[in-house]
């Protein structure tokens, strides 16, 4: 929250409901996108279940990193 910004006038308490919704959106988004990429790569290259777990892992790590950046570190 920078000084002079509209948000600077906000009350300090951040509604936790929003955080909950955002966290779920990040987790679903990460798993769906990178898991989806992994699944497509598996399908295109003729593998079965090789890149899908890798994609899911990348998505999960990316999601948790985003949650950390947006809601823990700030």
């Amino acid at each position, binding site marked *: 929250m920078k000084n002079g910004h509209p*948000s600077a006038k*906000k009350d300090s308490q951040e509604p936790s409901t929003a955080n909950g*919704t955002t966290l779920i959106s990040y987790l679903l988004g990460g798993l769906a996108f990178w898991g989806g990429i992994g699944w497509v790569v598996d399908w295109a290259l003729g593998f079965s279940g090789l890149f899908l777990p890798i994609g899911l892992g990348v998505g999960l790590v990316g999601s948790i990193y*985003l949650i950390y*950046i*947006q809601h823990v570190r700030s």
Partner: protein
Amino acid sequence: MGADLNVAAWEPGCHIFGDGCGFEAPGTELFNPTPWVDFGLAGAAGVTKYYVLAALSVVVVLAFWYFTTRRAKVVPGRAQGTAELLVGFLRDQVTRTTMGKEGDKFLPLMVTLFLFIFTMNVMGLIPIPGFQVPVTTSLAFPAVLALFVYILWNVIGIRRHGAVGHIKARLVPSGVPAWILPVVVPIEALSNFIIRPATHMIRLFAVMFAGHLLLALFAAAGFYMFNPMSPMGPVLGAVSVGYSAIALIGFLVFTVFELFIMAVQAYVFVLLSSIYIGEAIEGAH
């Protein structure tokens, strides 16, 4: 619940300790009424009880504001006081906490949204025969409201920060090293532009859907278990009345609880709308 429940358990003679006719729980048929007027369009539900109840909700909201504000005074009476209490609550708990002073211009929208959603939800508790269902248990209604907020979120973001600024603010988190961006930008895109509006709509729909189904189950079970004239004897007849009373108590307790949930869900929908719009005003995060 009355005519709402079109299930076998409600047919005459189908009771516990009866002639072997089993209980059939109410299902999704509660939420798929036969249309009175069918437009013949694929995917269109036609004119159903939802249509009528949504129109009734609009009338109720208009009437509320008409009767509470038509003789507005500096020192409010009871009716005006109720309306002011609602506006004050949403200003202090929703718009000011998420958007600061700037949120005041969105207060009329938030108050209207809250009251409209709450009224649509409460339609599930008003025993109008054949019409008793929360309007928000039809996915179309939360979907349109969530779509409206989504469009508003984009319009405000683009007007404040330009199209590039708005999209960049939503896709590129600040303070992230450039080499991680290829991993997190697609997650941000999917999360902010698709999953978040979807969850905004589904949360309201699913909670109201499940709540109404639970109430219907208690009502149907109470009816099924009421068999004082059981052919298996008066003892089992008395037991069946006891069972039925338990179901009735459950029904009453959950009805009160459901009223609370209806208010909470309307509040959460408005709170999330306010947070999203506040985020669009703020820009980069």
